[in-house]
């Protein structure tokens, strides 16, 4: 099976910033992404769980994008403008996709 190289960018960010991040991604031409709920975790700000939250203020989401390698910098610039001052993690990993024309 023919596969093609791509980049998988995963941005874990506070729920309240989700709309701002996805809007920035769309503005940068990234039209494909998946938003996943995060159940809990631990980091520099301490341990937290979705169960202990009464509002969106404390929750986190994970935004996953898969793009062509040459578009990575554009995406990261757009994402950084939103996540710079906020709690969160941005990771980039290599991956392979089956249908390159979709990315």
């Amino acid at each position, binding site marked *: 099976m023919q596969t093609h190289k791509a980049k998988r960018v995963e941005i874990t960010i506070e729920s*309240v910033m989700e709309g701002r991040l996805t809007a920035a991604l769309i503005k940068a031409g990234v039209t494909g992404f998946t938003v996943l709920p995060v159940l809990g975790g631990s980091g520099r700000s301490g341990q937290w769980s979705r169960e*202990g939250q009464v509002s969106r203020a404390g929750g986190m989401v994970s935004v996953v994008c898969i793009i062509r390698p040459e578009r990575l910098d554009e995406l990261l610039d757009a994402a950084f403008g939103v996540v710079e*001052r906020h709690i969160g993690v941005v990771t980039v990993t290599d991956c392979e996709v089956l249908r390159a024309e979709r990315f």
Partner: protein
Amino acid sequence: MDGILALAADNLLSPIILFFALGLAAAFARSDLSIPEAVAKGLSIYLLFAIGFKGGASVAAHGIDATLVLSLVAGLILSFALPLIAFALLRAITRLSVTDAAAVAGHYGSISIVTFVAATSVATSVGLSPEGYMVAVAAVMEAPAILSALWIVARFGKSSAEMEDGLMREILLNGSIVLLVGSFLIGWITGDEGMALIAPFIVAPFQGVLCLFLLDMGLVAGRGLREARSVLTAGLFAFGVAMPLVGSAFGLVAGLLLGLSPGGVMLFMTLSASASYIAVPAAMRVALPEANPSVYLTLSLGVTFPFNLTLGIPIYLAVSRALTGG
């Protein structure tokens, strides 16, 4: 004093408080008891819908007067002013940074709608009939405190506080406010006839739904306290208990000057005493991300909310009755 203690004892043994205590105890004991997120959301939608509609129907029954407008203005002024008092108090008795203190202060100018719902329930259970438009006052008091908090940071802080495009729109159009104000207007428009149609849905089940919701709030508050107790210093704890009393004093003065009924004065005290844990934390995460959310969420949800629910509301009720002769 005896009256306050008797009221407090009655309040502590009411189902809503006992369910809240059950949630707290379950969280402290690390029980796996939980209310599914979607159910909790549904319960809060029901409560906002019911309290808004009942408030609107009450205004339709009693008519509107200048006091309604003046109450809204007083609510706005209090919401802008209380964060300044809270900030001064925090800087005097805690070691919080300007940014953290401003973020906490913003919560104390805004309101907790669940505390308001619980206070309304207590007021009606003792035969008081608060002005229906207090629901509108509650809605008006949600957002101004956020602007005060951002102004404090801009004036006294080193970090930047941004009211970015769209944030005020998000705050003013957040789901809770839209549902509360919308239900209030529908209740007002449809009046007694509308009330008669849906009373079996929003009157009889109300207390039971409130019990379930407070069970969830107890679980959330208990888990929050368990996970963030390290941030809760003696000074912060003292603030979490003292600020509601200070705020309620301002609410008392406003209610008395406006000539509200005993129930109305009590609700004004409760609104001024309560602290937000939904709208303001979300706004602070966007506008003041440097502020520590553990501090403001633990204080408003883990200290002030239980205090108001158990001791605050009986105190506000007793003081209001004593000073209005109600």
